[in-house]
């Protein structure tokens, strides 16, 4: 029994202390995957805030945008033109979804809209595999001028490796978040978006077109998805299995709160770092693969004590 308690509460920390370079490496790896979780969660939050729709298709939008980019490049389109064309495709997707799906489902209960996005997920999976094939593809990293080397840092005789892709991912994600924040607070459209998030009817009454706003939010979520798709594709590959990993954005949302942009980021980082640490230091006690469910169980525990998340608005029910 003492041995068990030691291996849970003692040994992992001793390992962290003895090999600080490895510890830093694990934190860094967790940090980078946390950024990617945060990006996916950000797409969810944008749509949830603007329309109250829980967009289940966000994960597949990440895959779809990545596939479109790679597929266009494979047709011989130069990388940056392909990037622009992908952005156009994401706009077309947002427009089509609003026109064909959302507009017809106004005023339906949330569960119906949620299920419509599951149907949408199916369409995007089937369509994506139909057009681009189901095999995994590698992201056009060098063509997009994303650095691929690695830097080595040696703190006190240790060894920590930073992939340049990961650094680029962190920087790009930070830029994206800053520009989104500026867009929300400084531009007219951004203010309209915030007004819609606050109150649909009031914003309608001051002349904001809800349909237009929805297209813009889905487009913004599509852009976030594209960035997440590029970064994730550069780290591993572009494949449909990413869709299951993208479900991890859900526990991130629970942790951060469904309506909070900073919450999505902080939640993503907590989940990313937490699951890596747990996998490396506590995972061997349970057998490997705990990464698959750790995030969800953390979210489950969290839900029991603070259902609104770290930064979410308090859930008040009125009758």
């Amino acid at each position, binding site marked *: 029994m003492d041995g068990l308690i030691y291996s849970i509460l003692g040994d992992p920390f001793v390992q962290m202390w003895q090999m600080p370079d490895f510890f830093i490496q694990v934190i860094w790896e967790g940090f980078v995957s946390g950024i990617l979780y945060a990006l996916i969660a950000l797409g969810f939050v944008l749509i949830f805030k603007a329309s109250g729709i829980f967009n289940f298709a966000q994960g597949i939008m990440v895959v779809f945008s990545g596939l479109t980019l790679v597929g266009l490049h494979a047709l011989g389109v130069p990388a940056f033109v392909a990037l622009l064309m992908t952005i156009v495709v994401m706009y077309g997707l947002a427009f089509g979804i609003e026109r064909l799906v959302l507009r017809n489902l106004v005023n339906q209960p949330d*569960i119906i809209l949620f299920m419509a996005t599951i*149907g949408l997920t199916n*369409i995007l999976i089937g369509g994506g595999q139909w057009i681009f094939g189901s095999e995994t593809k590698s992201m056009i990293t060098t063509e997009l001028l994303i650095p691929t080397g690695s830097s080595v840092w040696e703190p006190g005789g240790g060894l920590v490796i930073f992939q340049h892709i990961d650094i680029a991912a962190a920087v790009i994600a930070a830029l994206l978040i800053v520009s989104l924040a500026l867009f929300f607070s400084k531009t007219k459209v951004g203010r309209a978006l915030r007004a819609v998030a606050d109150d649909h009817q009031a914003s309608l009454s001051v002349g904001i077109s809800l349909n237009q706003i929805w297209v813009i939010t889905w487009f913004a979520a599509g852009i976030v998805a594209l960035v997440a798709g590029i970064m994730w594709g550069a780290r591993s590959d572009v494949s449909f299995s990413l869709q299951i990993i993208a479900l991890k954005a859900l526990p991130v949302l629970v942790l951060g709160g469904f309506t909070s942009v900073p919450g999505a980021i902080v939640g993503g980082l907590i989940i990313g770092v937490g699951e890596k640490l747990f996998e490396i230091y506590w995972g061997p006690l349970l057998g490997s693969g705990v990464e698959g*469910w750790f995030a969800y169980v953390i979210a489950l525990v969290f839900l029991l004590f603070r*259902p609104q998340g770290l930064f979410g608005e308090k859930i008040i029910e009125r009758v």
Partner: protein
Amino acid sequence: MFYREAGQFKTSYAEYLQALPLREDKVGIAIWLLLAVFYVPFFGLPGLEYTFAMNAIMIPVLIFTITALGLNILVGYTGQISLGTGAFMGVGAYACYKLTTYFPDVNIILIILASGFVSAAVGALFGLPSLRIKGFYLVVATLAAQFFLEWCFIRVEWLYNYNPSGAIEVPQREVFGIVVTGAAASPATRYLVVLGILIFLTIIAGNLVRGRIGRSWMMIRDMDIAAELIGVRPLRAKLSAFAVSSYYCGVSGALMVFLWLGAAEVESFDVNHSFLYLFMVIFGGLGSITGSYMGAAFIWTFPILLKELGKRVFDIDSIIMENVSLVAIGMLIVFILIKEPHGLARLWQLGKQKLRIWPFAH
């Protein structure tokens, strides 16, 4: 003309309360039952090869109908969305496997029915968060169940008797001298066993949702605060819904492995299957027993038929047809949500209404 209640008078309270008050409904269901029991096991489905009709269509459709019934109790009647169905089916399957390993001589049908209780216990455990959270937050809780249980099915080697392949292989079991499970069982036997269990569970589900407990589920679904105010205990209503739903899922999972697949790995219980079952429930109709039958039959047979059609008529590769059917199902889901959010069951009801007033328009 053929379907109206005129002239059928009820003379006692009990007659009003029966499950199928209309004579036409009774006759209709009797015809379906006669066909299912006396025609299908011997001749299969018209126009299809016998073993294909049994193994690829009839048996899985009946099994998934049980799943859809269970999920409908949770999603349609109680209003709690679950994405953990696949894992709860897995719990039933592994429980059945362990039970029949320890008690090889006990009737396998009893073991299948008993393994549902293990699944019910697990389901109620993972339903606990539903007391504090609802809606999409609950989706996350059920996803936690899904991924955690999937991991258990891989890592806990005791569950599959330390089999190096990681799969469970169904042993041969006999009931009254007839082989029911394993490779030697005939399709007709397996079909009839599944059908029997399905009919039994349908009767129970139909009466549960008509009764006191079913009404408390529907009150929780429609407005939980109001339900609480007039004396429905959310704890009891929600957890019983989770338990009953998981019982159905567990039984169908055990049936799926023992009477249909014959062997199973963790892939048979993954999250994509959970989505498939949710589609069946949405498509058939939330909160409808008939809808569970229609949804399971439609969602399961539609891709198969599409694939056959593509192969025979247009000579298209089956991989492409698979993607086409994914897109088609997605579009159908969106379409039916827009046009008729209550699913096929509602269309069926509208059709019956039309028949009642025919030949008049109103």
